[in-house]
């Protein structure tokens, strides 16, 4: 499916693109946009609705935990944020690989579009976790394996955002950020297995392939907020991709007009 994609970047450092090629280059982003435009509200609105339903249910309709008490409700925000922080970087890594191997012009745009919402959810995960830790564990922060590796993920996002926005100035075929995106993915299994491999203050995995160790009466709003935040995340990524494609289009057009 990538054979038809042009191997040239959207913007080149070599100067203005000739019109014929410009038309060719935007042929496939145009196909992407014809799907992305109607899809954005269809992801965003159900996402917001699910988040609102899940968070309100988690505040008022579920029982407290036998040990943690009411503070267990922070889970409904914390767990989706952790999932999206990690899924976001996985997305950056996959998109970066596609960019490096197939020179897919949209892959670099997708990777850059994921970075900011990914960093946001990594930050939300760290902050809500810190707030959750104080009443339960008795500490805002401890340098255990899980907390430290999640903080590393947040710093990786910040570094990626800096690197890729500098790379975008040079042209969209920015290999340095792509390689950084792939290498940084090594942290994702470390975060996941940190609670199993190392003794940590953070508890083990509650929800796995084998099922959940959370009682159904407490668990049920969690899939709502997780799905809701995931849909909203996808909508944000599409919005940012649309913005970047439109900005690139304007810039190419202005360059061409200047050269004519």
């Amino acid at each position, binding site marked *: 499916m990538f054979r038809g994609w042009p191997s040239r970047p959207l913007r080149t450092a070599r100067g203005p693109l000739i019109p014929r090629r410009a038309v060719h280059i935007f042929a496939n982003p145009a196909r992407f946009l014809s799907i992305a435009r109607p899809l954005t509200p269809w992801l965003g609105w159900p996402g917001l609705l699910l988040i609102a339903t899940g968070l309100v249910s988690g505040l008022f309709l579920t*029982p*407290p*935990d*036998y*040990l*943690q*008490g009411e503070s*267990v409700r922070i*889970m409904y925000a914390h767990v989706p944020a952790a999932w999206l922080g990690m899924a976001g970087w996985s997305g950056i890594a996959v998109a970066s*690989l596609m960019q*490096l*191997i*197939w020179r897919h012009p949209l892959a670099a745009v997708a990777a850059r579009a994921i970075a900011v919402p990914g960093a946001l959810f990594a930050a939300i995960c760290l902050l809500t976790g810190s707030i959750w830790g104080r*009443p*339960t*564990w*008795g*500490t805002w922060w*401890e*340098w*255990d*394996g899980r907390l430290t590796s999640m903080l590393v993920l947040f710093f990786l996002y910040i570094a990626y955002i800096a690197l890729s926005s500098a790379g975008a100035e040079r042209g969209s075929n920015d290999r340095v950020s792509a390689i950084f995106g*792939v*290498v940084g*993915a*090594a*942290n994702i*299994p*470390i975060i996941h*297995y940190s609670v*199993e*491999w*190392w*003794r*940590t*203050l953070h*508890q*083990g*995995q*509650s929800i796995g392939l084998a099922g959940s*160790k*959370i*009682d159904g*009466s*407490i*668990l049920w709003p969690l899939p709502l907020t997780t799905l809701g935040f995931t849909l909203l995340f996808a909508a944000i990524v599409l919005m940012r991709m649309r913005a970047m494609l439109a900005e690139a289009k304007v810039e190419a057009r202005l360059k061409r007009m200047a050269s004519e």
Partner: protein
Amino acid sequence: MALKAKNQRLILALLAVVAIVGAALLAMSALKDQAAYFYTPADAKKDHVEVGRAVRLGGMVQKGSIQREADGVTIRFVVTDNVETVPVRFTGIVPDLFKEDSGVVAEGSFQPDGSFVATNILAKHDERYMPPQVAGEMHKTESLDANGAQQKGTK
């Protein structure tokens, strides 16, 4: 036979991914002991942790072991990993989740007599969340076993 540039990049990228994941896994297993956040009582005994060194001791608070001293702020309890036990003394405020039969991480140091003086107490809970009614119906011994298994499983 020359490979297409696209396939060459694919093979190179996949090799790079394998190398990165391999390096990460190697680093993790090498760090396994250093990165452990706390000693269990059995580990502390096996590794001969020096007296006076600042360490963390983690395990379960043994059932029936919490005693409050006359001053009202000093407590004594026993940390167990179902293999070894360490008596702990602590002066100060403990978190709400500090309970008998529940997880604990104590920051402090071992004393010459083998006991542990804590300067800070953290509560460690497990990954099972349930409402109080459900928890009340469960057998307490079962929960202790499950935790003991989890503690040992992390080694």
